[in-house]
């Protein structure tokens, strides 16, 4: 430690303690703050943890490196390497165990003073401590001390004042190391190899060396610049990382000739690299002046044996705090947990999450995988529906048969939850259109469906006569518009939009009254205005303001409205056209847009998205010339087909098959081409003709089912033989009676409900009587018999047939979502 940049270490065994060291050693205790308040004097480390300072040790000046004793006992013994090369044992524990008391304060002194760069405790022989020193002429730079060694005869008692203990005590010096290695060299980093207690890897000056203590004359070495911070992967004992400047080298000790891999070079020099102790192949690196810990997730690194594979290394980074990070330490046991310290000694405790992969399920739940864990996350059911995403809304609407009420079309907005005014307006429009069509049908049957999907544009365009495109002549306040120049088609369109009632009456009065009754003052006023009845509009606004339910500001609006002037350059006009944009209500906004607009250009009204489409269409019908057309173009085209396909696909994904089928039925009424043809024909084994010959005149409604021959209807003759060749039809594998005969109750069947089923109205072809067969083994019989068989059996009822008929189709085993609680 230079004294400026703190380092941080987790206790190897007491997992809630760590030490921060700069000029002194400070021991902290970590506590969870999940269920408790932050205690006075503790430092917050994260949202749910805090640290309390337990003790400070400032007895060892000139600290260069610190290593925590790896044994359980004594718990807080640390080795401190000093600038003069001495290694001092010191403690932060409050309870000084007498057994180890004589270890505390012990010093290990090299022959020549020089900086101690690194310390490493032997993981197996806990008393061995390796120290790496700078070079001093031909002296050794790697010294291995035995901390329990008997004091050598030449020990020199040294008087020292112990500040903390307040007592005078002799400190014993050890000068004879167990091993001396690395002669005439410098040692920058050290680590013991887990393969053998006596193997030591050292980053020397310009080479990495492996010393074997069994034979100290031998060493294995490789020349490299990457000699800093050697560290062994705890999960892969042959994999070693070291660094030089901004580059990390990964080595494989089995082929210790060159790095198997070098990681992307960082622009700034590295200060620390460390393998995650709780997870394989995760290397954390830190560079100078950085607030980012860069992580390398080594999913695959090249091996010296076997073929060349490209490495898969996922580069990640975490930013635990805003300040530069001085140092970090992995927690020894907590998964991917790390603590960092900044130069000003603020600390942060955090966990590196694994890369998360995620997927949405079609039913709007989100699944993600983080590490080895899976998490499922679903939208809460009781949520306010306004906040729900459209996917959820659509699903809930589909579930409530939204869009499938083709009789009372307007009811669909209630099926959708009755909370969206836009939807309400839409379905009412459709309702009016449908009603009109039905009226037309009564007048001229045979013209069915011509209007429903025709769209306003084609209705209006179907008029051959050209409507005069002059601005309606109105200057007075309540002058009625001349409705004569609205042709019949436009009136129809207005009817469809709900502005005017059916019949010859073209008065909007009833519509206005109904709007007023529903409290839609603004809309009513706008409609009145668009019908050029300013007086009525003002009156409606006044009513709204005085009703109590409406906004009092409506009076103000009414006042502004009454000031209307046709003068082009009037102040009124100028102010209204700018201030109208500040109005919140879209209808109020469009009223002023209308009043201030130039003749023939009503974009301010037509493109106000918040105004109901049908009001805008009605407006367009009233004021736009034919050439301007209307903003809607609801035509049956390819896009619509595509939308239908997508919607059907959604219903299928949600397993709303019944809804989809219902939708298809309604659709085929309008578009017979969408009706699928019969999909299955059964041909007679003997003559090859379709056995449905007898009922071929009746088009089949069913899809995928075969009900041929078994009508069960007393009015039709029973068919037990091929209508072509009169040969008998196959027998049911269970009752062994020819198909087409009335089915008897299941042999030995205790299912009384089936009997009840059979006693039901026999005029309907019952499903129990239907032909079924397995497409795989081609055995089959009456559907009812087959179903009851497979309730208890997996294999086909035909002897010696091992076909698992019912399990062949996984989708077939899915239950429609409508029948179960979603």
């Amino acid at each position, binding site marked *: 430690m230079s004294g400026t940049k703190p380092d941080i270490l987790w206790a190897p065994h007491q997992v809630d303690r760590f030490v921060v060291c700069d000029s002194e050693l400070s021991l902290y205790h970590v506590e*969870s703050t999940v269920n408790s308040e932050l205690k006075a004097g503790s430092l917050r480390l994260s*949202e*749910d943890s805090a640290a309390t300072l337990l003790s400070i040790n400032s007895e060892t000046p000139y600290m260069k490196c610190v290593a925590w004793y790896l044994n359980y006992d004594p718990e807080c013994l640390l080795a401190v390497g000093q600038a003069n090369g001495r290694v001092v044992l010191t403690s932060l524990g409050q309870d000084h165990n007498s057994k180890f008391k004589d270890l505390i304060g012990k010093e290990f002194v090299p022959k020549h003073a020089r900086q101690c760069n690194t310390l490493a405790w032997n993981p197996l022989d806990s008393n061995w401590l390796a120290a790496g020193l700078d070079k001093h002429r031909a002296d050794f730079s790697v010294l291995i001390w035995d901390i329990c060694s008997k004091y050598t005869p030449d020990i020199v008692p040294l008087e020292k004042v112990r500040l903390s203990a307040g007592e005078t005590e002799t400190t014993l010096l050890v000068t004879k190391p167990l091993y001396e290695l690395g002669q005439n060299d410098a040692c920058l980093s050290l680590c013991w190899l887990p393969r053998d207690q006596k193997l030591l890897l050292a980053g020397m000056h310009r080479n990495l060396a492996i010393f074997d203590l069994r034979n100290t004359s031998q060493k294995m070495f490789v020349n490299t610049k990457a000699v800093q911070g050697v560290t062994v992967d705890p999960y892969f004992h042959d994999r070693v990382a070291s660094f030089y400047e901004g580059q990390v080298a990964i080595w494989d000790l089995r082929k210790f000739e060159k790095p198997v891999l070098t990681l992307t070079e960082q622009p700034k020099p590295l200060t620390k690299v460390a393998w995650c102790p709780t997870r394989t192949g995760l290397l954390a690196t830190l560079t100078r002046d950085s607030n980012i810990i860069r992580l390398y997730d080594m*999913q*695959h690194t090249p091996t010296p044996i076997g073929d060349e594979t*490209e490495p*898969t290394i996922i580069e990640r*980074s*975490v*930013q*635990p705090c*805003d300040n530069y990070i001085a140092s970090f330490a992995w927690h020894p046991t*907590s*998964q991917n*947990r*790390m603590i960092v310290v900044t130069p000003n000694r603020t600390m*942060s405790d*955090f*966990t*590196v*999450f*694994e*890369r*998360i*992969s*995620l*997927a*949405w*399920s*079609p039913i*709007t739940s989100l*699944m*993600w*995988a*983080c590490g*080895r*864990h*899976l998490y*499922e*996350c*679903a*939208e*809460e059911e009781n*949520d306010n529906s306004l*906040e729900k*995403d459209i*996917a959820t809304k*659509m699903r809930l609407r589909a579930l409530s048969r939204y869009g499938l009420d083709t009789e009372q079309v307007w009811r669909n907005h209630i099926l959708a939850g009755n909370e969206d005014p836009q939807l309400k307006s839409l379905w009412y429009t459709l309702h009016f259109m449908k009603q009109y069509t039905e009226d037309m049908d009564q007048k001229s049957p045979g013209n069915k469906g011509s209007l429903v999907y025709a769209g306003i544009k084609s209705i209006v365009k179907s008029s051959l006569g050209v409507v005069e495109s002059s601005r309606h002549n109105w200057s007075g306040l309540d002058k009625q518009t001349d409705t004569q120049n609205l042709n019949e088609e436009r009136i129809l369109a207005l009817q469809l939009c709900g502005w005017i009632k059916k019949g010859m009456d073209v008065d909007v009065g009833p519509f206005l009254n109904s709007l007023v009754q529903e409290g839609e003052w603004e809309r009513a006023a706008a409609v009145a205005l668009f019908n050029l009845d300013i007086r009525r509009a003002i009156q409606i606004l006044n009513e709204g303001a005085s009703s109590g339910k409406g906004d009092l500001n409506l009076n103000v609006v009414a006042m502004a409205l009454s000031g209307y002037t046709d003068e082009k350059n009037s102040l009124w006009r100028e102010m209204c056209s700018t201030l109208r944009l500040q109005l919140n209500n879209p209808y109020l906004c469009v009223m002023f847009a209308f009043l201030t607009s130039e003749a023939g250009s009503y974009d301010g009204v037509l493109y106000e998205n918040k105004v109901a489409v049908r009001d805008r269409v009605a407006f367009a019908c009233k004021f736009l010339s034919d050439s301007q057309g209307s903003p809607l173009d609801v035509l049956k085209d390819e*896009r619509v087909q*595509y939308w239908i*396909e*997508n919607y059907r696909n*959604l219903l299928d*994904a949600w397993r709303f098959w019944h809804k989809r089928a219902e939708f298809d039925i309604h659709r085929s009424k309008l578009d017979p081409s969408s009706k699928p043809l019969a999909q299955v024909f059964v041909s007679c084994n003997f003559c090859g003709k379709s056995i449905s010959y007898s009922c071929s005149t009746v088009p089949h409604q069913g899809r995928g089912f075969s009900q041929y021959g078994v009508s069960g209807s007393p009015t039709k003759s029973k068919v037990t033989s091929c209508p072509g060749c009169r040969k008998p039809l196959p027998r049911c594998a269970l009752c062994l009676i020819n198909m087409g005969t009335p089915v008897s109750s299941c042999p030995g069947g205790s299912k009384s409900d089936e009997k009840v089923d059979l006693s039901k109205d026999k005029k309907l072809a019952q499903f129990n009587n239907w032909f079924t067969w397995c497409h795989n083994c081609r055995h089959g019989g009456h559907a009812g018999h087959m179903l009851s068989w497979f309730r208890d059996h*997996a294999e086909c009822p035909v002897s010696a047939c*091992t076909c*698992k008929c019912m*399990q062949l189709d*996984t*989708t077939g085993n899915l239950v429609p979502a409508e029948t179960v609680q979603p």
Partner: protein
Amino acid sequence: MFVARSIAADHKDLIHDVSFDFHGRRMATCSSDQSVKVWDKSESGDWHCTASWKTHSGSVWRVTWAHPEFGQVLASCSFDRTAAVWEEIVGESNDKLRGQSHWVKRTTLVDSRTSVTDVKFAPKHMGLMLATCSADGIVRVYEAPDVMNLSQWSLQHEISCKLSCSCISWNPSSSRAHPPMIAVGSDDSSPNAMAKAQIFEYNENTRKYAKAETLMTVTDPVHDIAFAPNLGRSFHILAIATKDVRIFTLKPVRKELTSSGGPTKFEIHIVAQFDNHNSQVWRVSWNITGTVLASSGDDGCVRLWKANYMDNWKCTGILKGNGSPVSGSSQQGSSNPPLGSNVPNLQNSLNGSSAGRKHS
């Protein structure tokens, strides 16, 4: 509001991918433990692992389901340089009785010389087709001409992307106005300014995939790419996970305005760009309607993004990777309160959560 709960996955190593089938009743996971697991959802909503088998001789990066009309079919891809197609069969064994199903390998696709990084089935209207991409920078499109025979796959197209590929996405649109299209992302991290996201489109005339667009603004490594479900839109939405979350819209310029025969030209707009993950974004996933995007990143959080009617995208939810809620008010871009959760902090009671939080 979203609520998270944990499922015991029992994978021996990191899970790399999660994938749902068409109905959302089945799920597949794949892992560095070289296995794939298939999960079935019970009527009560719980997930049960019904199959787990060793699929590859290396980490399995991705797993994906085919549309059920092709059967119960999975594809996986791996570091072992292969992709494989799997089919569930009802065998002679009594697996089903033990609640286990049996999956057999139908084919191994061995064309790649390097790690196969992604595999995706084409939209079903194109038939049984799948695309793979690999670290050697090649996208391969395979087709099973006979849907009844899953062991026969022919390599139809090889598209060279020049850069190591990390992810692909098919454009899901089945509209006839939209030719088949694949977006490819590259995680090449070498310091060059090349664009890392490309879009290839099938040309009916040449019967080849040709590059339609390069997203020039995406120059950092791309980790995931996803077209939003189309649902009838005339344009496409593409999400990209790179050093931030990006959402692009691609509006096809009408054919008559471009030279006929060539690839479609697009008006490309970036509609959202969020760096709330602070660092790398790993995955993006669209919900079924393409209205909510979920993303995950190195801040260890899952974030949800949604557009309002003005097409302004916003963060609508954040959850930590372990399912616990994110507390504190330092989240940017979030107008909603943090997501609730009833899950206890599963990893460790001392879990830090300040990971990657930016206080700006």
